């Protein structure tokens, strides 16, 4: 692809999303779809991000709020269980953290270079609300 000449691609400013033809795409999980190399799904935009969310599974109640609110479809949920974040497409906007209702939050923002295991090990404790 990187070395393709001007005479070697299909005409038009046009890219195909999937290899071959597709049938029940709405009923096919992303990991089972045959995305082309040209699909935006295949491209990482991780370098757009300055801060990243880290997911602490122990506190998650699988409410799916983050999955609903994520503007980049970067929350990975299977069978209504939150299983992680698509770090190739997450832009680090922080909306998932904002909408997370647990105490402490199951998602928090950290600098891009933060180590996931270290941060989870020192995750904040439950906040007691002052009355």
């Amino acid at each position, binding site marked *: 692809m990187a070395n*393709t*000449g*001007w*005479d070697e*691609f*299909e*005409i*038009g*400013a*046009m*890219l*195909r*999303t*999937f290899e071959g*033809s*597709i*049938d029940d*795409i709405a009923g096919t999980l992303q990991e089972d779809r045959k995305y082309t190399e040209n699909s*935006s799904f295949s491209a990482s935009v991780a370098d757009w991000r300055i801060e990243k969310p880290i997911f602490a599974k122990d506190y998650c109640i699988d409410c799916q709020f983050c999955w609903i609110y994520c503007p980049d479809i970067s929350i990975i949920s299977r069978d209504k269980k939150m299983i992680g974040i698509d770090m190739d497409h997450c832009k680090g906007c922080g909306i998932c953290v904002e909408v997370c209702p647990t105490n402490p939050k199951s998602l928090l923002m950290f600098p891009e270079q933060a180590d996931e295991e270290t941060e989870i090990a020192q995750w904040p404790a439950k906040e007691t609300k002052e009355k």
Partner: protein
Amino acid sequence: MAFDKMELRDIEVWDGNFAAAQALRQCQIDVVAAYPITPSTPIVEGYAKFLADNYVEGEFVMVESEHAAMSGCIGAAAAGGRVATATSSQGFALMVETLYQASGMRLPIVLNVVNRALAAPLNVNGDHSDMYLGRDSGWIQFDSYCPQDAYDLNFIAFRVAEDHDVRLPCMVHQDGFMTSHTAQGVHTMDDDTAYSFVGDFKPMNDMLDFEHPVTHGVQTEEDWHFEHKARQHNDLMTKVMPKIQAAFDDFKTLTGREYNIVERYDMDDADVCVVCMGTSVETAREVALEMRAKGIKAGVVGIRVVRPFPFFEIQEALKDVKAIAALDRSAPGGAPGMLFNEIAGCLFNTDTKALLSGYIYGLGGRDLTKKHLVDLFTELQANVDAGKVLTPLQQFIGVRGPKLQFL
């Protein structure tokens, strides 16, 4: 078919606009997204009326600007329909941003451009400013000289644009008012014959093919943009002219009417000639015949295909002539006229010793009279006799005030 056919006489009295509207009906355009502007409005109005009267199966989309009109056409063409619209002048200028999108996305849209001056000062009459504005947009551009051409070239435009080896949008130009509002006898085709020439639309990478989803109008930066533009230019330079010639040949077989990439009139033994476009071609032809009666061997070359520019056909047409006038009907904006430059580029590096001079004329609908052309041919003959161009290379014809000439 769900729509009604229209009975036409063999020869109808149509102006250029109605001729173009009839062509859009007979091609059975799926979508026309349009915004009105003088003098092109009757084309899309005509389509809308045919649609309302059940002579077409399609959609007429009323939009808020010409930018939106072409955007709607682009969407409809990417979706997989046969698409056309019309515009002029300021509307064309507003469309320019989307013209480049249409050609870059390789969408076979046909745009009828009824040529009109560009403001300021505001002017609704015909000159070629809008045609010239579109000449780098990557579209194919056909030029009509009369209503018959405006009718015929629409069919040819669809045939060429929709060819899967081409897939480039086409403009069909006609002179504002002089062609668009001047009724003449137009030889027609019956509906079935006309439709058979363009055939059923054959989609390519259409968005309505749900089994093969595509993204149209993608972003590329320094890594890919150049390759896409190179491909488009290559196809314009190598694939389009043979397809146009084939369409002209088939059209002649079907109707007996002959079109050529470059039209030549009395050029076989011509010493002097003018190269021009639009309605001026017909005036120049008449004057050339009269000049021959006076002993000046005059000829006329009309540009039929403006883009891609007929480089080799112009070389061939002008190889034996001794003096050439390039007539540009657009304010050149601080340069020689477009035709002067293109013709100079064609003839440079060849063996011809032809003398080339440029003339700017007819801006804002100013008439090009027979007297102007008599003087012009006489001037060209004087250049031939002297063996050099006796005047500056750029002169204005028909403008009031002191003689205006440069270069």
